[in-house]
């Protein structure tokens, strides 16, 4: 929810998710990933190599080890990236 509030990012699939979800970006994901890296975050797995038909998507995973603060930090970094 936090990530998809960022302009230019949408949840790709409608079904319920467990620990990971696919986000779609309205710009090349490699640029987003580079911006996240500068913020000290190793972003989600870019799906272009394995699923070229959804090339601007990435798989993000969150587990019980991620705090609310870290999730919000990711959302802020995505906002900056977009």
């Amino acid at each position: 929810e936090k990530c998809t509030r960022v302009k230019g990012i949408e949840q790709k699939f409608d079904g319920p998710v467990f620990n990971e979800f696919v986000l779609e970006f309205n710009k090349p994901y490699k640029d987003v990933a580079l911006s996240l890296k500068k913020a000290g975050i190793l972003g989600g797995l870019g799906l272009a190599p394995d699923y070229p038909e959804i090339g601007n998507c990435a798989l993000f995973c969150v587990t019980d080890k991620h705090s609310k603060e870290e999730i919000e930090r990711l959302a802020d970094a995505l906002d900056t990236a977009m």
Partner: protein
Amino acid sequence: MIREPLIFDLSDKGKRAFRVPELDVPVKKDVLQGIPMRRDIEGFPQVSEIEIVRHFTRLSRTNYCIDIGFYPLGSCTMKYNPKINEKIAGLAGFAGSHPSAPEDAVQGNLRLLKTLEILLTEITGMDVLTLQPTAGAQGELVGMLLIRACHSERGNPRKTVLIPDSAHGTNPSSAHICGYSVREIKSNDAGTVELADLDKAMNEDVAALMITNPNTLGVFEPDIQHICEIVHSKGGFVYMDGANMNALVGKCRPGDMGVDVIHLNLHKTFSTPHGGGGPGSGPVAVKKVLEPYLPVPVIEEMDGTYCFNYNRPLSIGKVRSFYGNFLVAVRALAYILSLGPSGLREVAEMAVLNSNYIRKSLENAYHLKYKTSTLHECVFSDKYQREYGVKNIDIAKRLIDYGVHPPTMSFPLIVQGALMVEPTETESKRDLDLFIQAMESIALEAKKNPDLLKNAPHSSYVRRLDETQAARNPILRWMPESGGDSEKDERPK
């Protein structure tokens, strides 16, 4: 020792070992609406953390392992696993990295893998190497697939693979899985490849010879160069099973003998833990002619930057998820760097010396079918003891009472009642002498009190198991009394 119960038997309702931290994000109850949710798993053990720790610690103590004592399991190379390798493999940048991480985030890892590739290539005298296979047998299959790919590209994959009768059973299996039929080559009285038989069998329908050197008897093939020439003269490849590399490392190189493909076992020669079944590593080194067919990805370096190259049109494809067992590679590299060239040479020298010391000490007490010199391992048989009704398995079980792990049994098949002893280089003379004394005592017991051996072991955690029943009627799963999982699942309506 008291028999350790199953963890299910330690369970008491309401105990728990771990609590997931409280949610610090808002709760949303309908987030998994419509998904069938399991509420309970009947019989799931409810135990505290200390009970878990104690249970598994006690279980581990019922197992023999290399950190407890001598482990002369022939062909396995059960050498000491240096603890410094564990520390290095545990460094956060190695242990915490993910195989899906982008290349730019794991340059150190890629450089490590490339360095190991280069060093193993140098050690084997080959041209290039892949670290992807994660076991020796997988390395064999990859090696054979590379050979097949090359022959196929030349227009004819060929039909047959030649394998000596002393070979490990995985060799013909790998050849068969690769689509080849197998023809056995006889061993001569010295226990080495019968050259006349090889010469007769080699033709342009033969894709390769798979050979182990030194062979499974521990004997070095003195005609290895001539053997390679015979195979090459008809366009075949020589595949070497590198399981016995501990006898050669630093002293001579398979590539210099004429070998085209070799697999290594990092969990044997290069000291990474066997782990009761893995993780292992079976890298494959090849001569340049087979380089185009290597599995993808290949690690490449340009101007100090490393990357994975998947653009390899002749590659046999991917043989493993990700890049092989990375942390095993870390341990092997740590081992190689800590020993250096002189240390590796000493490994082979001491491995050979220790084995020959045992061989000389026991050659009167136990039968040696082949009198040929051996390197890092030797194969006795139970021939003398059979006179008293005692077989190799009885000798092996009695060794357990002496606190020693038995040698490999009944292999190679060309020695009936085989006992294959490989001490490795990491044993002291004291431990070798204790083993020799134990074996000498057992040889005497076989004569004077054979029943003591036939009913052994007497002092171990479990007595001799009924292996026939275990194979026919295995109990594979604990089941709760009701016989199934809880029926309280919520199914979508």
